[in-house]
């Protein structure tokens, strides 16, 4: 598969911190690439450098093996996490305005259909819901029939139904062989939508692989969640465990032995949850902290 984007030794330094620290990776054409990490991990800075919004302190980004030119803006579509819409315009006018800024334009009817905008076309931008707004923002990102679509936390703040609607839209975009670069806080979202996942923390890329493989490496692992445990009783406990507020999360390959050990320590198993390991747990294992919102 051809590499559509290559990030080489990317570093971004601010006076007080290094936001991105020597990050390198490449993205194949037609896949959905997910970049995960907590706030401050450097993923938004990395994405903004890839989008051409910020300049890198060092390193570079290549589009189809070449340095990016002005024409790069014609090839990409961007959905920002937090941006307002032009005032006093309807949804359709906003979409038409952005389409007209590009040489290549997506079919308006297709945009309206795929982003489910039929019912709100004549509505003022200020009078649409959060989910409708996100759908419009994605439609704007697709206005130029881009080769790469950057989606920055597209479902943050949406209710579960609106989130699932958006996943359907992303799947539809994927089916048209578009390359998607997605950042998200939601592991479930990354698991469902992303083919490749990169995990960032403290400005570095700490893991990157196919979603299935990342999880597959830990497929025999289980996660045990216990509430209101006396911390002293966990002293010397063998399996990796993390305290998150009033919950202890234990990651183990042998849940039977682990539970026996807990009983022997007099730990109450009331309210215990045992489940297979997911990306959230993987993140915790790799970074030692939960994925913060």
């Amino acid at each position, binding site marked *: 598969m051809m590499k559509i984007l290559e990030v080489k030794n990317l570093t971004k330094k601010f006076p007080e911190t290094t936001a991105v620290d020597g990050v390198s990776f490449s993205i194949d054409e037609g896949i959905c690439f997910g970049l995960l990490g907590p706030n401050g991990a450097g993923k938004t800075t990395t994405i903004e450098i890839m*989008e*051409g*919004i910020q300049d890198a302190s060092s390193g570079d980004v290549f589009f189809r093996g070449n340095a990016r030119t*002005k024409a790069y*803006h*014609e090839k*990409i579509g*961007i959905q*920002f996490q*937090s*941006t*307002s*819409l*032009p*005032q*006093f*315009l309807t949804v359709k*006018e906003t979409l038409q*305005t*952005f389409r*007209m*800024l*590009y*040489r290549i334009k997506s079919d308006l009817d297709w945009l309206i259909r795929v982003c489910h905008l039929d019912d709100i076309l004549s509505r003022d931008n200020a009078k649409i819901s959060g989910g409708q707004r996100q759908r419009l923002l994605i439609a*704007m990102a697709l206005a*130029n029939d881009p080769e790469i679509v950057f989606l920055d936390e597209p479902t943050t703040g949406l209710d579960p139904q609106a989130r699932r609607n958006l996943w359907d839209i992303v799947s539809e975009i994927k089916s048209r062989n578009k390359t998607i670069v997605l950042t998200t806080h939601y592991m479930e979202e990354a698991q469902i939508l992303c083919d490749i996942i990169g995990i960032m923390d403290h400005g570095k890329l700490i893991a990157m692989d196919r979603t299935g493989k990342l999880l597959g490496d830990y497929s025999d692992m289980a996660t045990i969640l216990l509430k209101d445990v006396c911390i002293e009783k966990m002293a010397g406990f063998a399996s990796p465990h993390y305290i998150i507020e009033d919950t202890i999360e234990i990651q183990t390959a042998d849940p039977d032995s682990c539970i026996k050990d807990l009983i022997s320590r007099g730990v109450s198993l009331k309210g215990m949850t045992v489940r297979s390991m997911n990306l959230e747990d993987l993140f915790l294992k790799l970074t030692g902290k939960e994925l913060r919102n």
Partner: protein
Amino acid sequence: MWGRIWTIFVSRNKEFYRDKPTLIWNFLFPIFIIGSFFFMFSNDNQKLYKIGVIRSTYTGPKSVTILEDLKKIKYTELIWFDSPYEAEDKLVHHKIDLLIDPAGDAYFVSASSAKGYISEILIKHTSSNEAAAILSKNVIAGREIPYVEWMFPGIIGMNLMFSALFGVGIVLVRYRKNGVLKRFYVTPLHSFEFLSAQILSRLFLMMVSASIIFAVVSMLFNFECKGSYLDLFVLTLAGSASLISLGLVVASRLTSEELTDGLLNLITWPMMILSEVWFSLEGSVEWVRVAAKAMPLWHLVDGARKIMNDGATLWEIRSSIVALFGITAVGLFIGSILFKWKE
């Protein structure tokens, strides 16, 4: 390029006319101000000197003569008061210029009132021919320009100034702050195209609104333009462009609406005062008049008055036209150099 400029131009115009409160304010504010001044100053019976008289059952012999003579003098109004306290209060606060107490054959005048001083001379000479003997009569020819007609170009200019500076300045800063500019930045739209569309859109809207206001005010209050309407249009275009360019400079980098609002007020208020919108700077110190000429609004208002009131041509106001185009060019250059899409 022109397609993108046209797209932004159209969307910006839609924003303007759909923002109903702003739209109404833009049209009604100048008409309201001019209308108010028209009615305030159009009263033919306007009296220059107001002389209060305390009503009493007895009137002294000197007062009888003076009051009879004062009634015959033009531009003098006698205002009767039942209460001497109320009359004195009006005198203290310069609501009347002089107060006569017929019962005591006495008059009162405020030491700090200039009109009181003139009124005092008036009553001293009203029953004799001394005044006529001292003053020689001079007759001057020419049409008097009513204050409202003198003020009208100033009000239009002020409206254009607020529309340009706040319309462009605040909107750009708001768009920068809430990320709309950043969204445009990641499209092929060039900053030159974006700024051109903003300027053209605002210029178009300002010219349309100024023309409508001019037509409405002319019809309502029977104003006339002694000079050429085309000259007035060209001057207004140049003045509007210069004011917009000033707005662009202010809004080129700022991200705080509050700071922008403060800065714009800091620019607009001195400019309004020094540009002779409300009163003439004749008699003011030299540096004030020099400072005024550095401001685009002064050139716009002064030029418009010369065209409307005196029938001047563009050639006769060429120094103002050159100054306005110069300010526009410098403003656009600085504004586009400094312009920033994102925070």
